[in-house]
């Protein structure tokens, strides 16, 4: 039972153009702006890890960052074990967006979800608009790890995903301890119930919105 691979779902959240896709491509393909990237798409990628002998399979879900899709967030992040919140250090607004996401995630999923905040594009340090101190203080205040990354220079990316994976493992082990003896399957089951609740909420609001024509 213990040998079963842990499945973790990680969502990438953040405004468009902060480099979510570049981050994940760098991580999974070790490439940046490269013509020879083999994957057709960078919106869903799998990464297998081995952390201290434990097999972990990360499913990395990219999300559409455009503001008009913001309301769809709950559908994306339900049942996720972790979230990476990406902002651009040269863009104050994108950091603000991260704060909004954190608030929303904590409200909807509580402490079940592990958060990592990534300050991306540190290769553009010269035009930094979000101060290191502010970002790190904020991350600490919401119980999230803060990591500076650059997809271009391949800095901090492995660290980012590794930190998050360790955290998720820890949480998952704690959950397993709580439901002692219960298999991973049953924790999945719990998650799925939670998912169903979200769906029914949606349906309720949809019904309120009335006729479409």
């Amino acid at each position: 039972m213990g040998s079963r691979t842990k499945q973790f779902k990680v969502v990438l959240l953040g405004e468009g153009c902060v480099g979510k896709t570049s981050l994940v491509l760098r991580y999974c393909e070790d490439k940046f702006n490269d013509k020879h990237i083999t994957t057709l798409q960078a919106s869903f990628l799998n990464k297998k890890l081995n952390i201290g002998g434990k097999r972990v399979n990360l499913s990395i879900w990219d999300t559409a960052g455009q503001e008009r899709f913001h309301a769809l967030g709950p559908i994306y992040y339900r049942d996720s074990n972790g979230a990476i919140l990406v902002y651009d250090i040269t863009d104050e607004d994108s950091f603000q967006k991260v704060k909004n996401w954190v608030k929303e995630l904590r409200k909807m999923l509580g402490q079940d979800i592990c958060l990592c905040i990534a300050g991306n594009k540190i290769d553009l340090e010269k035009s930094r608009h979000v101060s290191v101190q502010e970002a790190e203080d904020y991350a600490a205040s919401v119980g999230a790890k803060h990591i500076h990354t650059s997809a271009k220079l391949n800095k901090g990316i492995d660290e980012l995903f590794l930190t998050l994976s360790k955290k998720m493992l820890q949480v998952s082990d704690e959950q397993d301890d709580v439901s002692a003896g219960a298999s991973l399957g049953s924790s999945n089951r719990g998650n799925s119930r939670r998912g169903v609740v979200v769906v029914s909420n949606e349906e309720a609001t949809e019904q309120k919105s009335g006729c479409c024509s």
Partner: protein
Amino acid sequence: MAGYCSKCWRDIYTQQQHKLQQQIDLDHEYAKKLQEEEHRNLHPTETSPQVSALQSSTPKSSPAQPHSPQTPASTKADATLERSFKPFENKKVHTKGFSGRGFRNFFSPSSEHSTVSPNSVKHKSTPQRKSNSAMQMSPHQWPNPERQLSFESKRASKDFVDFIVAFQEPAAKDVLKKCHEFMTKLTSNNESTIDEKSEMVQVFYQSMTDRLLSHPHFKSHAHEEDHDKIMNNVEKFIMTKIYRDVFCHDQTDDEAEDLKVQTRIRNLHWITAAMLDANIDISKSCVSEWTDKAITAIIEMDSKRAPQDKLACVSRCSKHIFEAIRRSKDDGSPASADEYLPALIHIVLKANPPLLKSNIRYITRFSNPIHIMSGEDAYFFTNLCCAVTYIENEETGLNAESLSLTQVEFDAYMRGEMQTGEKQEENERQLCPGLKLMYKNLNDLASLHERTDKMLEEAMQMRQGIQQHSLHVKTQVEKILSQTPSRDPFPNFSQSLTYVNDSTETRRSRSTSALDEDLCGNDLLPPPLVPTVAP
């Protein structure tokens, strides 16, 4: 599709079903009598010939011709296997009888009271109640056992049995038994709501997974892959079997929701890929080829029964979309979610799949959570949910603001008063080659017509010009002539000549007279030379 709306179709269908059912009931009564007689004579304890016919899937199950149970040419080994599958096959018959009832009930709840004979009413309305006791009855007493199973159902049973016999006997038997028990439980519980059924299915998946992990029968199949395979097949089998009972169920508002989404999408037909910021350039034929494939894939979802098959359609659709995006881009970089979601929305709007909402709800309710929580299929399915939510929702989803249009423009598009340029182009693209050629020829003809008109007009102008010119010449000549009448050596001649238009003679005469005029008008010239005789 053609002809009836769903409500009218239901009415008509109900009537037809009704007649058919009466006939079937009569036949069935007769067949049952015959069977019972023969059964009593031959094999008081054996199972019904019909069921064995069903098992061996030979086309012998005609209701009016019961046959002896020895007919299926099965070996002894088969026979033991058969016996172990028997309860399961009974279940198959039972499920069918039940689903038939549910179906009929779905169409016309009141029909049972009006025209059906009391005997058949009993058959139709009670199979669920009887189900427990019916387990002990001989199978030929099942309601409508001769009723044909749907193609998918038969195939699912066959596939599942084929799959499961590959495992060792106690394991295979155990899985079959569990599935069988579960389906009995589910179908016998007619009053339960769809959510309860969903819960039952989910609990079953869970208990099955736990059983695979803990039960000694499965020790030899301890691999994760084996478990996944078994669970996959169990899910496929069960869901294919109970599909009719749970998909777009009459207790739910699924159908109404489907229609609502369909209407909404129809109203939004004018939205172009560019408006959604979808990076899909349909003008390239290689791109439109992939979008067409994506549309086909998403519509194909309706024809699948098992949740994972439906999910596979969604994934296929998404992969075609990625291909389309890649071909629309110049640099060929992998598509991000920022590009994928708008493109998916665009494809959903183009495809307008008829049972979209039902399918999504069905998958959410009855899929094994593993499929919709992790993995690629889950990601694509989630995006489809997002796309549908976005399309449906007028407040936070698709509206004037999110398309960067003014409310006035948006309303005009919604009323069909405005049409986007791209839309027209696209309409043209959708024509067949013959029509395209016709339109091209019509265009050519129109321009030819225009040019001919223009030429005719010019010809007329030219003619007028010529007439004016000759008139002008005439007046000029007349004027000149009137100025110099006395010098004219041939007054009558030149007078008559002026009436002849544009002839060489006129020109000559005119030149003559002009010559004369010149001659006599110029006094400054030296006197003409006079011939003299040389000395």
